[in-house]
């Protein structure tokens, strides 16, 4: 039997202001579990910088200085694979891999094992920095080439 829409006590359409903004939930209605776990910022109590400083990386239990697993929130293959590659390029790193443990959780894990010459945390920090440098180079190369291409096009049409 087809489901029927029940008439409720709302003869008029709700005005635009009363309607929650569709796909963009309010701060309070965000994922409650994630807020419990991560938004507290360690509960250190200094509420000066609440917004934007939600901690998005943590070390998973069971790590040592040279072998650690990091959990990233709200990250996926976009960051994971490129970061894994660049960390693996570090000669002080013995092993690096990433995984997304479950597709319906927006979490990405990176495992780093280093030689005694550095620490896993340092290798991660260096990886992030190196990837940023790589982005700089690619962005610069692309824009230089774009300018060259448009310039060449202009010369041709003259």
């Amino acid at each position, binding site marked *: 039997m087809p489901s029927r829409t029940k008439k409720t006590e709302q003869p008029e359409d709700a005005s*635009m*202001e009363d*309607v929650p*903004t*569709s*796909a*963009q939930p*309010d701060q309070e209605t965000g994922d409650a579990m994630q807020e419990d776990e*991560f938004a507290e*910022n*360690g509960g250190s109590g200094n509420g000066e910088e609440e917004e934007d*400083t939600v*901690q*998005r*990386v943590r*070390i*998973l*239990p*069971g*790590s*040592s*200085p*040279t*072998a650690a*697993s990091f959990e990233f929130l709200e990250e996926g293959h*976009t*960051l994971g*694979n*490129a970061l894994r*590659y*660049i960390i*693996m390029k570090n*000669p002080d790193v013995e*092993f*690096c*891999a*990433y*995984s997304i443990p479950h597709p319906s959780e927006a979490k990405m894990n990176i*495992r780093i094992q280093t030689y005694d010459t550095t*620490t896993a*945390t*340092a290798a*991660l920090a*260096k990886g*992030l920095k*190196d*990837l*940023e*440098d*790589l982005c*700089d*180079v*690619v*962005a610069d*190369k*692309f824009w230089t*080439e*774009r300018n*060259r*291409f448009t310039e060449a096009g202009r010369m041709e049409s003259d």
Partner: protein
Amino acid sequence: MDYDAMDMDTEALGPAVKISEADSTHVNFELSNVDLSFANSLRRIIQAEVPTVAIDLVEFMANTSVLADEFIAHRLGLIPLDSRNIKDMPMARDCDCGGHCDKCTVILTLHAKCLGDEIMNVHASDFSVSSARPNQTVGNPIITDPEGLGPLICKLRKGQELHIECMAKKGIAKEHAKWMPTSAVGFEYDPHNKLHHLDLWYETDAEAEWPKSKYADWEDPPQEGEPFDYDAVPNRFYFEVESAGNIDPDAIIQLGISELQQKLAKLITGLGEKSNIDDQYDGPQSPGAMDDGAMYQNDGYQTAYGNGGAQSAWGGGATAYGTTPYGNSGQGGWS
């Protein structure tokens, strides 16, 4: 460059970009001397994380057309809106207003009623865009057809009416595809399939049945009887980026890279506040701050090393030791 100093065989040359075609709607370029993982990150980020504006909320004052409200609302979301100057516009959820305001929302209104006997076409060009918005280009419907009409929204017969007010907001395609700046992104490498990343299906002869990509001429075809190179990795990536019109194609690439950099910068800042990373609930001590003899145990978690991985809720069999490094370090892990 730090990574330049490392041993990078062909990558030692550094990344290179070569544009082969470009106009207002698309850009074709070759990105070389980078890893597949990085090239793929670039592809993913320009498709899913470059912000644009799109209609997100529609109020129907009148709709007597043959199309249902939600049907029209869905169409409206997909209309490309000018997002070139989106920088000074915050995401609505990050805006101080808490709902919508002139800074984070563009209001588009449309009121059409068919009075004549002819069927009336309602186009995106019929929108009137409110002037109270971050700047005077953001949110304008993109109109590229020679008639200057823009996308068709619906058709009205005599007496039918459509009166709507739409709120356009900033967003990314990770949330909804209507925020995609690209209509298509071509991504290919190894046109001769020398790396055997593809297993081509065939009736009798794969070589004859699969047409070659136009980039096949750019690379040397395999030699007769050439042995398989087990060390070869993809090195040249061919992008064909097609803009939906809301952002120029070259700017999409630029914004994509800067989006990735912002992502990294935020993480670096987060890591920089050293205390934070370990400060989480049940997190371990900072490895750096730890004495040699320290135990890496807390809150009843066993270390993944000591117990063969059976007990830890986190570590255990899921540590790197438990999985094969081959599947992860090779080229199989990307998607």
